[in-house]
């Protein structure tokens, strides 16, 4: 059945039994069409039931299986073996504490996401019985791309700034705040600005653009952050140079 034997080098760490992480080699009989996740599942099922990692959907939408594959943040369910030669090194996502093996602690993101108020703060109050808020396809298009974030954390693992300055709110959370700011139904931008236009917000971003390169859903967080910067700058000028324009 197998077409190819793949050498996996997987980071192992169990905080109860290991003082530091180590690598373990597995020779895995694989089909050519497989993704790295399939190979890990084979290891877990046949070779080593102690290996721990997260996964669920196997279709790049649940965001569980982000890991470093040959040093790059990837979804294991969308990292095709056909694109790799030689030993494939699999590690937990960079910049997050390791809980065990390939499982990281993502509390930091979860807390930051909540801080940016990623929910609609309606511009106008309208009872549900009155029907839908009208939104043209063009208005939808303004923010649609930023709704596609699956919270997989690849952008945080790729972001050099987040690695250096952990308090940086980071690409995904800021993009989601921007998603609501750009929604024609929303009136909550000022509330969100307090978080995302702060020192821990967009001004930490040095526009390396790695986040957009690794995003599996093509959200383009780097673009979102640039837009937030430009709009925040306009805010500053309006406030300081044209105070009479302020509401």
């Amino acid at each position: 059945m197998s077409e190819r034997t793949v050498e996996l080098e997987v980071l192992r760490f169990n905080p109860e039994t290991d003082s530091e992480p180590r690598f373990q080699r597995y020779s895995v009989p694989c089909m050519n069409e497989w993704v790295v996740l399939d190979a890990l599942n084979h290891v877990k099922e046949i070779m080593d039931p102690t290996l721990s990692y997260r996964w669920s959907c196997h279709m790049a939408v649940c965001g569980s299986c982000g890991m470093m594959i040959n040093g790059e943040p990837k979804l294991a369910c969308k990292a095709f073996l056909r694109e790799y030669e030689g030993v494939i090194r699999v590690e937990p996502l960079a910049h997050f504490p390791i809980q065990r093996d390939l499982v990281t602690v993502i509390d930091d993101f979860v807390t930051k996401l909540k801080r940016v108020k990623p929910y609609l703060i309606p511009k106008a109050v309208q009872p549900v019985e009155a029907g839908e808020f009208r939104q043209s396809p063009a208005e939808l298009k303004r923010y649609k791309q930023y709704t596609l974030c699956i919270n997989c954390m690849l952008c945080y693992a790729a972001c050099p700034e987040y690695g250096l300055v952990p308090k940086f709110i980071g690409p995904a959370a800021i993009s989601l705040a921007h998603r609501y700011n750009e929604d024609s139904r929303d009136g909550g931008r000022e509330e969100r600005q307090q978080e995302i236009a702060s020192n821990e917000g967009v001004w930490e971003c040095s526009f390396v653009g790695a986040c957009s390169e690794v995003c599996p859903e093509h959200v383009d967080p780097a673009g979102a952050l640039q837009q937030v910067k430009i709009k925040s700058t306009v805010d500053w000028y309006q406030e300081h140079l044209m105070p009479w324009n302020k509401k």
Partner: protein
Amino acid sequence: MEIIKTDVAVLGAGGAGLRAAIALAETRPALKIALVSKVYPMRSHTCAAEGGAAGVIKPDDSLDFHFHDTVGGGDWLSDQDAVDYFIREAPKELLQLEHWGCPWSREANGSVAVRPFGGMKKQRTWFAADKSGFHILHTLFQTSLKFPAIQRFDEYYVTDLVVEDGQCRGFTAIEMRSGQMKFIRANAVIIASGGAGRMFPFTTNGAIKTGDGMALAYRAGVPLKDMEFVQYHPTGLPNTGTLLTEACRGEGGILVNKNGRRFLQDYGMGPETPVGQPVLKTMELGPRDRVSQAFWHEQKKGNMVQTRWGDCMMLDLRHLGEQKINERLPLVRDMATSYLSVDPVTDPVPVRPVVHYMMGGIDTDIRAATSVKGLYAAGECACVSINGANRLGSNSLTELLVFGRRAALSALEYLDNGAGAANESAITAGANDAQGRLRELFSRTGGTETLAGLRREMMATMEENAGIYRSGEGLQQACATLAALRERYARIELHDKTNVYNTDLLQAMELGAMLDCAEAVTVSALERRESRGAHQRLDFTARDDDKYLRHSLARYRGAQPPEIGYSDVVITRSPPGVRDYSGEQK
């Protein structure tokens, strides 16, 4: 053991669980709500739903049409009072999501857009491109962050419900990151833990869909209802089982056999309709059970395309053109291109039916209440039943919302009326028993089985004997195999006896849940000696309303196979009739 005291505990944080938690927090901001899930909410399998959510919104549609489509689609096994409640609440819930920011696709005038779906007489499926479930889940998850009353317990695996004197008093759960067991004490519990498709080897369901909540309720004395009804979705990628949404056909895609014939016309769903101009409720827009069954017959006739992953039919989308495919079905294109190296813009995609959804589940009434006081269930894990013997595509996303909210309101009514006086020492003893069972599992030695081995045997027997067509003989075989597997499972030993994020332990508990659910499926299927909806018997080929216009109820009996009883179907205004998906239907 740490005791966490809350008012209401919600088990599962997908669409139904989040909707329930939000309804609780909106209604009672001072309530203490525990939202407990074995995964982070955004990992829940609601995210994988693609096509959309049904709700009457357009002027040419009516609640009556939605009612009759759903009841007929379910082969008259749906409870009609529940369907009435469902269709009335459906548009309100979808509008509520719109008000929370869900990025529904739009018409040029800014109103929400709808698309055709299988078995539906009118276009009434709200959609957000082909990631509708994903957007519903994230809208609910993000909205839930507004409510301080909702306290989340992410990555906690629930092991046992604690029921004392006929009332649910909470549950025990393992905190995955520490391996510690906690007792979530609550006077009302809502189970919203999803389906159990992972009992089968070839499924659209994610790894997490292992029937955990169904098994918990079942072991606590709540029957599992209509478990024999397992939905095959006609169009899965043949290698990975990845779903290609029914919207492919709603948008005009066609299904052909190896001779290029649109074979559905040969199975009561003709006459053929013009390519690219789908006609509602016929041909490719027939219901899922009929389309999957037609595939099976074509396969027997040797009319399918042979691939290395088995026999396939071809889903042809080419005539839709690149622009429409990119706009309406971007995920479908991505999935087929990435996982199968077939671009639907230029080539037909081989597909085959794949296990997708459990119509059956935890027996609840129209209020989402179970037979155990203080215990409610909603979503795929529950069986109200609105779906009857076959669910129509796009009813389940709406069901999450309607009955997630309903479960929350019922739980509040229950608390307001005063949950009965609690015997706290008996309750704590119940929680300690659960911990004792976990300790026993950890300390067990001498096991000779592997989890993976048992799991493979379970999946093999389910695929072989509990698939699209079933026979008494095959089902008997499956029941015997599953009984033996449950016995062997009771002696398994863990390979991994550490505490932190122990997925060997997690998979062991999940397998236990799946084995219990699988046995409920096969025993219920064996006892239903008729063919109805998704349950087709080669030895009893006709529907038998005299004997089986009834819900099956599987009752847990420990190591013994379940006892099967029946309850009446609620018929209010649609007497059982003929399901007509021919183009001549009125």
